[in-house]
Structures are given as C-alpha cells and as structure tokens.
C-alpha cells in the first residue's frame, strides 16, 4: 500500500484569516463571560474585527473571518445549531450583505462608524425578524423594538469608534 500524502498548504492569506478569526473568537468568548441583564443584548465586540478586516483586506476576508467566528464561537460556547446559532448566523450574513453594499459608499462621507451602525441595525433587524417569524410566531415583538434597536445603536456606535481608532494605528499583522 502506497502511503498517500495529502498536503494542505496554507497561504499567507489563510494564516492571516485564521489569526484574525482567532482574535474574533476570543472576543466572542470574552463577552460571553460578561453578565448582561437582558438575553439577546450583547456588545458584539467581534464585529470590531470584522470591520477592521473589511477595511484592511476587503470583503472576502471579512466574510471568512465573520463566518469562522460564528461557527467556531458557537461550537466553543455549545450553541452550534441551536436557535441562538441560527440567529447569530442569519444576523451575521445580513450584516455582511449590508457591508458589501455600504463599503462602496463614498469614503469621504461614510467612515467605519457609519458602516458599523448599518451593520448593527441589519444584524438586529434580521434577528428580530427571525424571532418573529420562527421562534415567537403570533406574538407581537413590537414592544421589544425600542430596547433592541437602542442597544444596536449604542453597540454599533461604540464598535465603530473602536474600529476607527484601531484603523488609525499602523497594522501589526502586515509585518508578521
């Protein structure tokens, strides 16, 4: 029997995506440890990484990092294939879709903060829609809107400011 050799060569881009996804997963885990009074409201710190990657390496890399973070983060937290995972996945996909469009807005007018806000609202909007259509059918979620949209506004703003701050610094990953 001839020994089969399967060789997987990781390109520099693969390594970069893996490293950034690891950072995003780390943030997801860290924020899961933060006690929050209301289920469903969390800061979404990993989206800072998504925004950074979007600006530095483009949409494709950002989608990889976000996708890996959602799946691996859910696996580590024991949420894989649960409703929470479905919400995280659909919210993430819609955010990425919005970002794919929004990143072509004129840079002079729209910065990281604007993109972060758009992504946050897309994220929570999709999640509330899924909750309404699938998890709590027939129950009016209208009463939850101000709370969740308010939280999305705040976290979108803070994450956008964090991303803008980090984007202003020289990249460390480029020298690696």
């Amino acid at each position, binding site marked *: 029997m001839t020994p089969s050799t399967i060789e997987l060569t990781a390109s520099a881009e693969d390594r970069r995506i893996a490293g950034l996804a690891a950072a995003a997963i780390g943030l997801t885990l860290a924020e899961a440890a933060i006690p929050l009074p209301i289920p469903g409201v969390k800061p979404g710190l990993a989206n800072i990484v998504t925004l950074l990657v979007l600006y530095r390496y483009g949409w494709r890399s950002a989608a990889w990092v976000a996708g890996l973070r959602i799946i691996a983060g859910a696996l580590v937290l024991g949420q894989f294939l649960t409703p929470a995972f479905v919400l995280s996945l659909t919210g993430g996909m819609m955010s990425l879709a919005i970002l794919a469009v929004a990143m072509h807005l004129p840079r002079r007018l729209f*910065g990281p903060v604007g993109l972060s806000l758009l992504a946050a*609202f897309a994220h929570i909007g999709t999640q509330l829609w899924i909750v309404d259509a699938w998890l709590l059918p027939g129950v009016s979620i209208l009463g939850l809107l101000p709370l969740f949209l308010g939280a999305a*506004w705040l976290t979108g*703003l803070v994450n956008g*400011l964090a991303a803008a701050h980090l984007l202003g610094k020289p990249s460390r990953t480029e020298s690696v």
Partner: protein
Amino acid sequence: MLIAARGLFATFRPGDWLLAGAGLALVGGLWLRQADSLEGRVVVRVDGQVVETAGLRLNRVIEVAGPLGPSRIEIQAGRVRVVADPSPRQLCVRQGWIPPGGAAVCLPNRISVENAAAGYDTLNY
C-alpha cells in the same frame, strides 16, 4: 478628556453623523410610541372608550359607571376580575380572574375589562 473625545469624534464623517442621527431618531420615536401603549396594563372601557387604566401591581378596586349602574373591578395580587356588575346574567363576574391577554365583557352594561399583560414569558425562550 476633551481632547480625547475630540479625537474620537474626528473619525466621524458627515454620513456617519447622518446615520447616527437617523438611528437615534428611529429609536427615540419607537420609544415614545411605546410609552403611551397600554401593554401590560388593565384597560377598562365603557362603550368602547377607555375610561380607566391601571397597573397590575397595585391592589385596588375600580368603580365604573355603565348605563345600568356601577361595576366593581378588583385588582388583587397581580390578577384582575370583575367583582360586581348589574348585568342580569353575570357572565363577566362568573368568568373569574381574567388571564393575561384575556378580557371580560359585561353586557348589556357595556363595560369591558382587558388584561393587556403579555401572556408569555420571553425569558423561557
């Protein structure tokens, strides 16, 4: 502190301000709309017009005058019921405690009592 804040907001571009403002207006508008909704309260109507709303947390007796005479509505330990009503068949009184999301209608005295509390527990999801 001020300089740090200025540095922070220097990253805002015109469109960012616009989006942040629009988002805030949306949230604020929804909040205001929410503020005068009757969700989570006991709503008493005579002839379809709201005459009294009350929270479920405070024990109290509400007297409302209908065309036939006064009805007494009791809020007790987070529950609500119609205690007395002049309507001949006493359907709304015999209904007992009104479940969350339910209502009692006293006819022909034209009084309705709605328990507009949410009938579900979101935390369980």
